[in-house]
């Protein structure tokens, strides 16, 4: 069984929001769109987005880490949002594990959003149905797109390649390898939702200099060590 997912590498995410707006522009004119925006040119502009990048500061100056944290639907393997839906509008696809909303069935009761601990769902204030990341399901199988582009828009745009996409049930997939080898973890594991999306932690490369490395045979100062001499200058050698 396939479970498609994103693996987000916090080690390289610089918080540029490329995933946020590339998602918006693809999806607002795609199968999941439109994605409305209120007060687009007025006070407190607010719209529907499937993906947001947040910023957290960890620690105290000067030992501070700034973490940029993209967040979208995690396509849980045991999604709490699905069984609570009274109409069956929220569902998890058997073939690839993507959690989707059928807009025609959605009554806009928002209960699924209550049942998501991650805040991944957003109601469209004008279409009045619940929306969320579709993993660009209208891209990833689209015969209209070149094969290399059959990936979510956010993954394609991400300048730091911080978003990996693939099947986490395939042990040899890029995402499984990344999770396995680079400490991939799930958010709020305490609720047993088994998010398909994983995050890769920060990893810090350090350097250790052994003091021997500073005492060098190739020290160029050795070449400068003996200033030029004038052979005419007196020396002990002249005396004895």
């Amino acid at each position, binding site marked *: 069984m396939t479970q498609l997912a994103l693996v987000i590498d916090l080690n*390289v995410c610089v918080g540029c929001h490329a995933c*946020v707006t590339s998602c*918006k522009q693809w999806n607002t004119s795609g*199968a999941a769109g439109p994605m409305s925006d209120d007060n687009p*040119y*007025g006070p407190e*502009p607010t719209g529907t987005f499937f993906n947001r990048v947040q910023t957290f500061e960890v620690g105290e100056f000067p030992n501070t880490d700034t973490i940029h944290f993209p967040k979208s639907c995690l396509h849980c393997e045991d999604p709490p949002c699905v069984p609570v839906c009274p109409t069956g509008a929220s569902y998890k696809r058997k073939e690839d594990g993507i959690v989707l909303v059928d807009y025609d069935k959605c009554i806009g009761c928002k209960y699924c959003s209550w049942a998501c601990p991650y805040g991944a769902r957003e109601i469209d204030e004008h279409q009045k149905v619940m929306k969320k990341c579709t993993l660009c399901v209208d891209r990833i199988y689209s015969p209209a797109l070149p094969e290399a582009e059959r990936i979510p828009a956010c993954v394609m745009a991400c300048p*730091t390649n911080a978003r990996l996409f693939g099947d986490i049930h395939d042990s040899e997939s890029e995402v499984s390898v990344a999770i396995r080898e680079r400490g991939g973890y799930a958010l709020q594991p305490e609720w047993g939702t088994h998010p398909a999306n994983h995050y890769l932690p920060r990893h810090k*490369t350090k350097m250790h200099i052994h003091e021997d490395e500073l005492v060098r045979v190739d020290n160029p100062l050795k070449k400068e060590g003996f200033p030029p001499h004038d052979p005419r200058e007196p020396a002990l050698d002249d005396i004895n």
Partner: protein
Amino acid sequence: MVDLANNAAVESGNIEVKNTTCYMCACRCGIRVTLRDGVVRYIQGNPDHPLNKGVLCAKGSSGIMKQYSPARLTKPLKRKPGSDRGANEFVEISWEEAFKTMEERLRAIRASDPKKFALFTGRDQMQALTGLFARQFGTPNYAAHGGFCSVNMAAGMIYTIGGSFWEFGGPDLDRAHLFVMLGTAEDHHSNPMKMAISKFKRDGGRFISINPIRTGYSAIADEWIPIKPGTDGALLLALINEIIQTGLYDRDFLVRYSNAAQLINVNAASDDFGMFVRTSEVPPPGVIHPQDQLWWDRHTNTPVQTHSEGADPYLLGDFRLDDGTPVKPAFQLLAERVTDNTPEWAEQITGIPAATIRRLAHEMGVIARDETIELPIAWTDAWGKEHAAVTGNPVAFHAMRGLAAHSNGFQTIRALGILMSLLGTIDRPGGFRHKAPFPRPIPPCPKTPNGPQDVRPNEPLHGMPLGWPADPNDLFVDADGEPLRIDKGFSWEYPLSVHGLMHNVITNAWRGDPYPIDTLLIFMANMAWNSTMNTVAVRDMLNDKNPNGEYKIPFLIVCDAFQSEMVSFADLVLPDTSYLERHDVMSMLDRPISEFDGPVDSVRIPVVPPMGQCKPFQEVLVELGGRLNLPAFTHKDGTRKFKNYPDFVINYETEPGSGIGFLAGWRGKNGDQFMKGEPNPKQWEMYEKNNCVFHYELPKSYQYMRNWNAGYLEWARHHRLTRYVDPINIHIYSEVLQKFRLAAQGKYPGKKPPQRLRQRVEKYFDPLPFYYEPLESQLTDTALYPLNAVTQRPMAMYHSWDSQNAWLRQIHAHNYLFVNPKTARAQDIADGGWLWVESMHGKVRCMCRYSEAVEPGTVWTWNAIGKQSGAWNLEPGSNEANKGFLLNHVISEELPPHADGAHISNSDPVTGQAGWYDVRVRIYKAGADEEKVTSPQFNTLKPVPGQSGRKSWLAFFAGGKK
């Protein structure tokens, strides 16, 4: 059922896919635009583009909202008779009326005194054309935004290593092992830097960020070293000191490829004090940098010509020539210079512990020495020596405005260039790599006019509007040594102001100092808002009148695509197109998008027709050039030479028959030549077929060591990138600067600074880098204003451009002042509370956000989020106006009157780089009874004719049926 996987319905409609180049920032990524029924549906990175290889940032991905923004100007406008500038009251006019108005006015100016027309442009990408237009018009008063952006970076590096960061070079992160980034705004450089850092980190590289603030790229650094703003110079000198002390420098590299071993006359009494001793009096013809300096050879213990076969010069020592002249190698002088610049000394200035500085130096040095890269690429150096391999020391640096935007930035950046050179990392794998057309001679060849005689009625300018002074006699000053440009560029106040000083244009023009002008044409620069210092006063100047009722700046033309704050001050408004609606070139004559491996240029080709009556600014210039009969735009018989801008791009040659034009690719009648060749009528089509980009990959043996690579230098000369093949030796010691210093001491033959500036020039034109406190700090009571205040660039916004973008403004709707909690609590300022930030020039009320990611002596905010109410067609009461603010109000364009003059620019004394980050401030809590809006506030602007209405909500769905 709505099956979201079923894309057939949404991909209905007429789908077209077109390639062009992004312009949501200055990065110039290749984009692929999908249209559905003629509406922009999707903008993706072009996977076949060498710059971004398919990725695209938040801005680029929001181009749709820019294209269809209600802030767009769509009609030519003139100020409503009787209304004030700044009131934003306009009446619609025809393009013909606009052209006629400009033609009449400019023709008269050109016939009398061309310098009364000034053309200044923002972050445009067409300086090849705008510069040409100014030059053809005959005015020296032209520059782009470089002077207030990062000219220190350009000048400091180019005057040291013959190349610079970003467009002209950068860190080779593919091969580097250690990457040190100092003070870098995230837009310099954008996507390629993100791609490179990510790959670098994944490959196990170590990334150190030195920055007062940990945002953006610094966030993912392996180590963050907070530093006090404006003190990087002290850090770099201490690093140089430690690297020399420990012998971790690359001696062989310095000897052969820099002037480190060259002997300098140290006889203080001599007129040639501080100059290299040379074997020839006059350089031989065809040579710009004669190789006639001396080394002191260790083997023979005699002075020998540099690069003599078998010679091995001393880098340190103290020698005496046969004629008794005392001489020292440049490196000796550098070592002496940094003797006192110990890590302990630097700790006091930078706030970085001395042990950290030492460790940093050791990391750099040990990696550079012990992790050497050797590539089996044979090459020949400029002295004829054959090398079996290209070697490199894998320590790379990147720096930008954090170093540049200080009045000590030039010398700081010189220090950086020297540190990079000491480590032996210039144009070598894993270090710094050039991008064509760089490296260029130090300094590059173009020169400005150098006296009043070069500006003549009805004639093109004699000289380039912007150039690279090599000695005092290249300055553009009158007989008294006083400035001739409106921004006082290339004068003794800012001799190496190679990008001009746009930040002083309005103030100088208003004051009539050095002279009044008639017409100021501003292209896409928001000089009444975020792109100016001292915003409130500058807005008053724009609206100020003489006693006779005429404006002090009589005529103001603004060309912009959007209703910026600057537009409201215009007498004449020209609606520019969006980037998706026009032809553009990223020209080798301006700032191309070259890669490390060879020259690259690119184009924009319209993907949608212009909105309303929008007209590309290039078309305006080509049309005006024809109407004004400027020689380059007109046939001998006076008829117009170019049908339009695309026609101009194809057919224009720098000189008749030169074969050099705006585009380097597919030249020659059949498109089979590049760099140089006859105009090709099918050039646009060929670019279009090739992803809008031309990329020539140099042979491997020409890709490295290009300053000294005989093969490359020959290639570059053959393809007319350069005029000379002389090796471009690194200026560890800058003889160029010494010439200006000698002039200030009354020694160098020719032009001398006016008396009041002699001390200034003498001090700051130090041939070796040194640290001094930024000028503004020197003139500030720092006990009263203890904090530094700087801005950062949010990655999802480019300057002021994106507040009208419905998607991007949701990410950054307003801004806070970020303050270390310790600093804020000391003033009893709450997280989220209101505070005042005040400098000696002004004050701003804003909201505070605590941050542990800023050093306690610094406060900062995002740049250019704050907007004037109603500007950019935002509703009054929008976050940008009520909660957003500009730091510009506390920054002055001029220093307080002091010994150097009453109106000295708040800039680097060498380059005229705006000292944005020098301001000192204090913060205090706003009163509980104060209004909860940012201060200052301005009048609310109404929309102008031709703007589309603002929708109260959007549900954008491009074309098609849903």
